[in-house]
């Protein structure tokens, strides 16, 4: 192969690569949350974070990309959960069947600017996990690990109960575009929000296809006396118990002094 032919080939490859890469890099997402460290104090009763962002376009962005769609997925720390079902046995209602959900998010919120089925095809919805029905929630089914159909009794009960506590949510009108490229959304955090690291994934769609995505994160921490109590109860159970027992005896002793009748 002559040097000229080689360079022509290299040029062609580079050009082809550029053509393929262009749609991916033409738009860039720049985002920020209003607070990267949320502190839960003893009188915490929930709050709302704000996520701001903009779509940065460079010259190579196709002009057809004017109507952007945005899906924001917020996931809290993961944990194993058990869902139990009550059944009537011997005239009373008792827990019989149960399912284990493995390493599922303790907090899960999905926000978008319009309904998911308007943003993308069912196939893309499933692949990109758009909507509570499409997010992967792994269950232990016998010896298998799998997610089940969205209308499975245990899965839907799990999602419903988490939603009732404001811990799972799906709002398809929560993302608002202030200008065609500037957007914002609120992230409501209820009072019983689990502590830990939260990931925020922002996906940009146009014409039913994913264009680009980015990630950010924030932490929820307990501070002060409350956090001290919670961690010592978990880490030094015996010492914590001894302290509580001592506190009880002191309270009882104080009462017997204060209210002594003779």
């Amino acid at each position, binding site marked *: 192969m002559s040097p000229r032919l080689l360079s022509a080939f290299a040029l062609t490859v580079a050009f082809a690569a550029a053509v393929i890469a262009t749609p991916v890099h033409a738009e860039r997402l720049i985002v920020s949350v209003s607070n990267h460290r949320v502190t839960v104090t003893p009188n915490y009763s929930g709050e709302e974070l704000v996520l701001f962002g903009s779509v940065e376009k460079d010259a190579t962005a196709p002009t057809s990309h004017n109507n952007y769609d945005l899906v924001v997925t917020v996931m809290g720390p993961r944990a194993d959960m058990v869902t139990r079902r009550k059944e009537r046995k011997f005239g009373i*209602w008792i827990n019989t069947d149960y399912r284990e959900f493995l390493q599922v998010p303790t907090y899960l919120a999905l926000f978008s600017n319009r309904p998911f089925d308007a943003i993308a095809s069912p196939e893309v919805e499933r692949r990109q996990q758009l909507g509570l029905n499409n997010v992967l929630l792994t269950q232990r089914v016998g010896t298998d690990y799998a997610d089940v159909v969205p209308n499975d009794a245990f899965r839907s*009960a799990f999602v419903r109960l988490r939603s009732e506590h404001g811990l799972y949510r799906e709002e398809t009108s929560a993302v608002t575009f202030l200008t065609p490229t500037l957007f914002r959304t609120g992230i409501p955090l209820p009072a019983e929000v689990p502590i830990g690291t939260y990931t925020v994934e922002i996906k940009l769609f146009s014409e039913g296809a994913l264009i680009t995505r980015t990630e950010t994160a924030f932490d929820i921490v307990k501070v002060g006396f409350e956090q001290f109590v919670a961690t010592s*109860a978990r880490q030094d*159970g*015996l010492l914590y118990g001894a302290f509580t027992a001592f506190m*009880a005896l002191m309270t009882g002793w104080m009462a017997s002094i204060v209210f002594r009748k003779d």
Partner: protein
Amino acid sequence: MQLYLPIADIPVNIFLLLAMGAAVGFVSGMFGIGGGFLMTPLLIFIGIAPAVAVASVASHIAASSFSGAISYWRRRAIDPTLALVLLSGGTIGTALGVWTFTLLRALGQLDLMIALSYVVLLTTVGGLMFWEGLRSMLRIRRGIAVPLRRSGSHGWIHGLPLKLRFKRSKIYLSVIPVIAVGLIIGFIGAIMGIGGGFILIPIMIYFLRVPTSTVIGTSMVLTLVTMTFATLLHAATNHLVDAVLALILMIGGVTGAQFGARAGQKIRGEHLRLLLGLLILAVGIRFAVELVIRPDDLFTIREAGGAA
């Protein structure tokens, strides 16, 4: 004012808890009992996980029984020998109770067992107490004197070996039934979050024939030690004791108890027993109704290893 409970993991109104502590304290002071059988259900009804309620109430009862035990000790109304023998059974019972509690929790049947124990125990004891109070009230109305300590009944208890002389109570009794009673009270106390005074006192009076002068003080010592021990074990094994919750309840409880004790002195004994019987019966029935009616939601979620 909302306060976030670190272990129960929910925000509650601090004044609601104080009021509950005071109300239960009033009742417990009035009847001379710990009040755990009222406090644990109340906490469950306001939305605290049953496991956390049971574990936290243990320390609340420890506080109220300690202040009671001190004043009975001053009046020399505690039998130390009897208390020690009861305790030898009581501590074993408590350890067994906490172990069973942990096992049931892993099986997901703890809430059911707590509810069932409440139904069985409270309806039985409440019903008996109510009936007994009603009968003695009717007898008094008819002018018949009621002997508090019937003689001759339950003679088999006195035929048991290993007899010991309990000097302050002036009784001569086998240690076997005493240890057994301690064991049972310690066991159910650890599972149900009760001190057990409302069962222990009738048992000590009718079965062991402990005189009324030492019965309440001595039962308080058993409650004090088993509940302190239960607090320790629940904290060490299940991490479910909410110290903040317990402290608020204690403060309300010990204050309410003082006023309750004064009110109790103004009410006649059989009326008191009738009232207490009704109260215990009502809590038992409340649990029974809960079990029988179809729950609003058949599903529950629990974090594996978490509190709620």
